[in-house]
């Protein structure tokens, strides 16, 4: 089997470092704005936690029957860090073994985790926004409150903006780098 190029090998380290930022910065941020909240409300989603104005958002959401957000309800906060650590561990092996095939597999695993994570995030948002308490004081026919996965959405008196935070951007950058390097390694291999 062919060995990795120098840049390919360095990229393994870079990807691992990029992913390490997930323990130091939030992945995602959802900002909410309403007339009564001039400073806005925001919620940060970490690899293993959810922070920000969660209590205030929970207090507001009971009016429309949305369930409360509690850290302990998220199995993801255990699985996600474990998965990412395992992925980073595999990276170390890819680096030591130094074979192109290892790198390709590593990229495929990454893409698989990424797709599953976004699907999981979307599914949670869908349930959170649609599974409403039928006894909620405020019921707007046809209205659901699913926050956007990415981008802007207006829901009743709230405007919501969802976007990656620092950790999320590094995660995306890691993914982009994996795909590009895989592509370049493949091209080199054909020569």
């Amino acid at each position, binding site marked *: 089997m062919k060995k990795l190029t120098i840049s390919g090998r360095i990229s393994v380290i870079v990807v691992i470092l990029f992913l390490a930022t997930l323990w130091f910065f939030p992945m995602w941020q959802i900002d909410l704005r309403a007339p009564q909240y001039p400073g806005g409300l925001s919620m940060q989603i970490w690899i293993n936690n959810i922070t920000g104005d969660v209590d205030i958002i929970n*207090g507001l959401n009971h009016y429309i029957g949305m369930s409360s957000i509690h850290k302990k309800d998220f199995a993801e906060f255990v699985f996600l860090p474990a998965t990412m650590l395992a992925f980073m561990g595999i990276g170390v092996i890819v680096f030591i073994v130094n074979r192109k095939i290892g790198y390709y597999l590593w990229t495929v695993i990454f893409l698989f985790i990424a797709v599953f994570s976004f699907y999981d995030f979307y599914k949670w948002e869908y349930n959170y926004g649609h599974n409403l308490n039928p006894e909620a004081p405020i019921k707007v026919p046809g209205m659901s409150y699913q926050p956007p996965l990415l981008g802007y959405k207006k829901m009743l008196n709230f405007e919501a903006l969802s976007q990656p935070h620092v950790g999320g951007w590094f995660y995306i950058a890691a993914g982009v780098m994996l795909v590009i390097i895989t592509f370049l390694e493949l091209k080199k291999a054909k020569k």
Partner: protein
Amino acid sequence: MKSAEAAVVGDAASKVYVAPGKYDEFYNFVSGGFSGQVSVYGLPSGRLLKVIPVFSKNPENGWGYNEETKAMLNTTFGEIPWDDQHHLDLSQTNGEHDGKWLFANANNTPRVARIDLTTFKTAEILQIPNSAGNHSSPFITENTEYVVAGTRFSVPMGDEDVPISSFKKNFRSTASFISVDKNTGHMNLAFQIVLPGMNLDLSHAGKGPSHDWFFFSCYNTEQAYTLLEVNASQKDKDFIVAVNWKKAEEYAKAGKGKKMAADYAHNTYDEAKQTATSVIEHDVLVLDPKDCPDMVYMIPCPKSPHGCDVDPTGEYFVGSGKLAALIPVFSFAKFQKAIQDKAFDGDFYGIPVIKYEAALHGEVQKPGLGPLHTEFDDKGNAYTSMFLSSEVVKWRLKDLQVLDRAPTYYSVGHLMVPGGDTRKPYGKYLVAYNKITKDRYLPTGPELCQSAQLYDISGDKMQLILDFPTIGEPHYGQACPAALIKDKQVKFYDINKNGNQYVTMGEKKANVVRNGNRVDVYMTAIRSHLVPDNIEGVYVGDDVYFHVTNLEQDWDLPHGFAIKNNPDAELLVMPGETATLRFSPQKQGIYPYYCTDFCSALHQEMSGYLRVSAKGSNVPLKFGTGVIDTTASAK
């Protein structure tokens, strides 16, 4: 004659316009006079931001009514629900505002209050014994070492029964020095200097070179006890009483004072326990100038001086003889030299009287009629209010020349320049606090508002730019840049640090407990329900204590609590706070209770019922929220 319209010129509107959503440049704290409270305005807009309950009970938020704050208005004469609040002083460090506390006096039943500027709540009230008419108060020294309280209506020391006509023999005035803890702000009556029977009027501390001194104006050195308007206006000169407080402090430490029995209340609001306690103190240390040489001097000052103000450098002090046709300006350096040279003009009850000319820097000639108070700007100018000629007069400290005069509408009392009584005046604005308004606003029956008038003093000429009504009677005010205070405001209380003994930590802990005829309701409030909202098993003659804990943890989300037919007040409970309302039902019936502060879209639903049954009936104690009883509804 200048007309009122002519006085307001040019771009006045743009100078006071603070666009919606924008902040004012200064906080202006204004005494509430006979309202007993302190008001807070924004400058330059003149918008009323808050009324802080201090000496008067306030049913609007439960101050003085709820169990937590009742003790704040306790005195040795029981609860006193009102006072006459005249003067304010912001705490200082190195002679400049530090934005920590605001001190307020009570004139009628002598007391001094301290207001915490992170919560805008009254944190402490100290009663002053051996005094009456606590007028020359609560002025402070440059590092807030002391707050003073001086007697305007001399009274006998202690509580002996003496004829009023024995004024000269038995009546005394006292200058009380209250020490302030640098970190906590806690006040302690350190010592009282006993002075002859006369009326101490106003005061200010020295600055810089005069740091160790405190100056009090006094009138009625004639020692009249009847028809004062004539009998106390006979002498050409009364005095500025100069007290060396550093020396007094040394004498107190050296044991030169006498411990004297005197009861007075000391009320403190404990922020951690959210509860006030009232302690009765039993003695006070009294210093007599006879035993303490070089502690007190008298400086003659024309015609019943009122204001007693010290310039930013601390070198000049101004006595404003309210019946005088001139303003004397004294020099601290000359005063010190006069003491050294013993340039005395006899004594007043053993206290050396300095020769008038020996301490005099000069006189401002023909300033106007009825000079009352003087404040200073940052450019070496002084501004004196003229009650009779109803104007503000600007003059220069250096050569005592009158530079400008501007009319007030009408009869100005105090005036205030932001920082104008500190070492660092901010200048820019001047506010005149007027006693009479007559035709200035839409009439409101015989009782009219009093007012404040804002002048731009940044140029050579003073320019009237705004005129606004005030609450109560505005006497003195203080103003400091908003930046000094606004960023350290408490937005809500951390529920986890709530140390109130009656806190309910979460809805699951809500409870109703009977103990004899005392019923404690541990209630929670969060948008948009109260727990419990149904209570039964309470009888006529019970004392029901509603301990309401606001579980919200967000800014600007107070909940109110009121119950039908309760004869006193309601509660306003801030987020994370607990407050207690006592209710003693006199008749059986259903008593709805509800949240009074529009809190949310379902505020109208935030209510409950208390069932009060006849005494001796056997309705069991029952309470809850969200429990539907199907058995009773069938009946």
